[in-house]
């Protein structure tokens, strides 16, 4: 494990220790269950966004995609009475399809990732509100798709399903990113797209692939989030979630300049963010300070990292 991942892992443990000492509730089964469920859900889409960040891009659209896909999922299941398997397949395909559109706009039309996905953020949010006529969509009694809601809210041997799913996704993505030819190409393109092209790498398809992965994983997460909240209110559902993902990726060692990062780092970064939110709850810090605490901790982490790596560089010279 590289220094970056190790230091944030240590930070995570230290933080857990402090919270556990100050409030033993932290280690209660209910709290551990709930926190790990959130880590699993957020981890899945953060991995997708992190892969995009490694290409040197960014994906701002996932939060709004959760609203759009959540609304559609509810309507498919409760209003159109589609079989759950079909609904899942369509949601995943839609997620990946939107990612494909982002990727093609970015690589073929040479638009900036920030702009393309920012437009996605606005567009999908608006569409979600329009389709749902600005009213909340729920899942009613859940008849006919119990297994699907179990996937989001159930557990396997006491481990929340989203966490199990994140482990599976994490392993697959780790193999892809750190062991496969595609992963090596992804890092190469992120570090120097032109040089990668001169080496015969089809950088456009490599980059597009990253956005498809991000969209697809956002599709998976959208189902988990919809069932977790059990009600999708299109104007607020998934708000700011893209920023959680980007923060997790950066905390975990991804550089926004591209070419750097790891799956382990992204997952640890996600866990750290969730523990921070949990900390605000458990330590009687006013809930309104939620974002402020996260912002401060991320800032301190980034400053510490920058000064550490500066010292390392001096030592190398």
């Amino acid at each position: 494990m590289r220094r970056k991942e190790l230091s944030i892992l240590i930070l995570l443990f230290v933080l857990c220790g402090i919270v556990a000492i100050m409030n033993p509730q932290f280690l209660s089964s209910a709290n551990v269950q709930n926190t790990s469920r959130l880590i699993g859900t957020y981890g899945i889409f953060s991995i997708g966004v992190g892969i995009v960040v490694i290409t040197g891009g960014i994906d701002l659209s996932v939060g709004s995609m959760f609203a759009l896909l959540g609304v559609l999922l509810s309507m498919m299941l409760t209003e159109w009475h589609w079989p759950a398997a079909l609904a899942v397949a369509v949601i995943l395909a839609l997620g990946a399809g939107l990612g494909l559109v982002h990727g093609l706009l970015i690589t073929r039309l040479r638009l900036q990732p920030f702009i393309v996905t920012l437009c996605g953020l606005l567009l999908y949010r608006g569409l979600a509100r329009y389709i749902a006529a600005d009213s909340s969509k729920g899942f009613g009694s859940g008849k006919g798709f119990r297994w699907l809601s179990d996937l989001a809210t159930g557990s396997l041997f006491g481990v929340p399903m989203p966490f199990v799913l994140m482990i599976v996704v994490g392993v697959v993505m780790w193999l892809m990113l750190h062991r496969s030819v595609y992963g090596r190409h992804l890092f190469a393109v992120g570090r120097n797209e032109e040089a990668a092209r001169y080496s015969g790498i089809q950088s456009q398809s490599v980059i597009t692939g990253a956005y498809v992965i991000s969209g697809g994983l956002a599709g998976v997460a959208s189902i988990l989030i919809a069932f977790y909240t059990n009600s999708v209110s299109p104007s607020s559902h998934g708000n700011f979630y893209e920023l959680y993902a980007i923060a997790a990726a950066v905390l975990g060692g991804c550089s926004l300049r591209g070419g750097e990062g790891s799956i382990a780092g992204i997952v640890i970064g996600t866990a750290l963010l969730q523990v921070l939110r949990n900390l605000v709850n458990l330590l009687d810090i006013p809930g309104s300070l939620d974002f402020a605490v996260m912002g401060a901790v991320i800032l301190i982490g980034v400053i510490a990292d920058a000064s550490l790596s500066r010292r390392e560089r001096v030592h190398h010279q």
Partner: protein
Amino acid sequence: MHALQMSGISKRFPGVTALDSVDLDLARGEVVALVGENGAGKSTLMKILAGIHQPDSGMIRINGEPVVLRSPRESARHGIGIIHQELEVIDSLDIAGNVFLGREPTRGPLRFIDRRRIDAETVAVLARLNLRLSPRTLVRQLPTAHQQMVEIARAISLNAGILIMDEPTSSLTLTETEQLFRVVKDLRAEGVSIIYISHRLSEVQELADRVVVLRDGKNAGTLERDQIRHNQMVQLMVGRDLNSFYTPRQSSATASCESVCFEVKEMRTRRYPNSGVSLAVRRGEILGLAGLVGAGRSELVAAIFGVELPLSGTVHIDGTAVEIQSPRDAIHRGIYLIPEDRRSFGLITAMTVRENITLPALERYSFAGFIQESAEEVVAVKMCTELKIKTPSTGVTASNLSGGNQQKVVLAKWLSLKPKVILFDEPTRGIDVGAKAEIYHLMRHLADQGVAILMVSSDMEEILGNSDRVAVMHEGRISGVLDRAQCTQEAIMRLAVA
């Protein structure tokens, strides 16, 4: 009195002694060439003069006064101007904006920039350099040579008494180089002292009043004006004789009967849409492609390699036309490019030597889409040994290697495949003498194995020393092809400017 006197300058970095008691002095109106292999300490010495590094010991005097240069700002205040090898102009600003960057004169209570004044002063400085350009021209619209002149103009307008020029001609054409030489000589006549750093010894021979040679961080010797000879400089630089610098083809007579391996027909590039280029390279031949920078040579090789698609034209290998839409297609056909700018295009400097070498053909070292690092390592180690790449291990990041070793890594990428055609674009730009010779040997070795080589070079010695034939380009078309027997500097120049 000396304009500049550096005595006993030492500088240690953790693990290396970059400079060991180095002396350098410079009289008013003198051009001193500072030469040495990469890593000899030239750039550290200049960084000390620029105020970027502080020496551990030693004394710097300017006009006899001891000075301490703690920052680039202080260095500039003492009249030291630096023209960097990598141009440091802001290309979205105009000429005047660059010349006065950071010290714009203002007027009025709101301190608006005094445009009229900086325009007028810029015109005056440009006139000293014999340039008639509008001060409002955007720098990005200027050719490289003029961008460099803007840097020189900036230094002059700062009243620099000491001018450091670091490899100033590395991206200039022959005529532009001559233009620069005139400027250097004019400045010298005006009393400006110049430290001229260059790997091109013929330039040093023409310009320098004195040559100071550094080797391994120490003074290796000084040559006065009448002692400056190519061989002497090389000998001092490397500490040994380099008698076999170039290895010409053993029997050039056989070249003519060998078959044409690689042919380009009527290729038109975006830069010169009205002229088509045709050329042919035989198996085992090195065809030098000479010409002025801007003659369309780099555009041509970029088009052949599929980087910038040509407007028209075909590429043939062994008589069959091949379609090239991207570098990937070219690579599949066995056509490889060693690009001019290796840090931007040749290498991914943040990746390791091993990862760079295997990048173009990772499929070969993987199974079912997964990379087998042991197979990768075998190839990387083999290439490092064959090409004598100096690196502690294959896991070292490419950015840590010297220019020459980096260029060998770029070569290694392609040599581990089976090259048919290699396009070299300025193969030894910014590379030191020792590594240059090794790359020339490799080039000849490849040709002897039957590879067709097209070598774009603006370095006349390189063209004359390595080519079996020379094609010369002028404004987008081939103005002539010379056999080895006809190849002289004059003949090439005549075609290049024709």
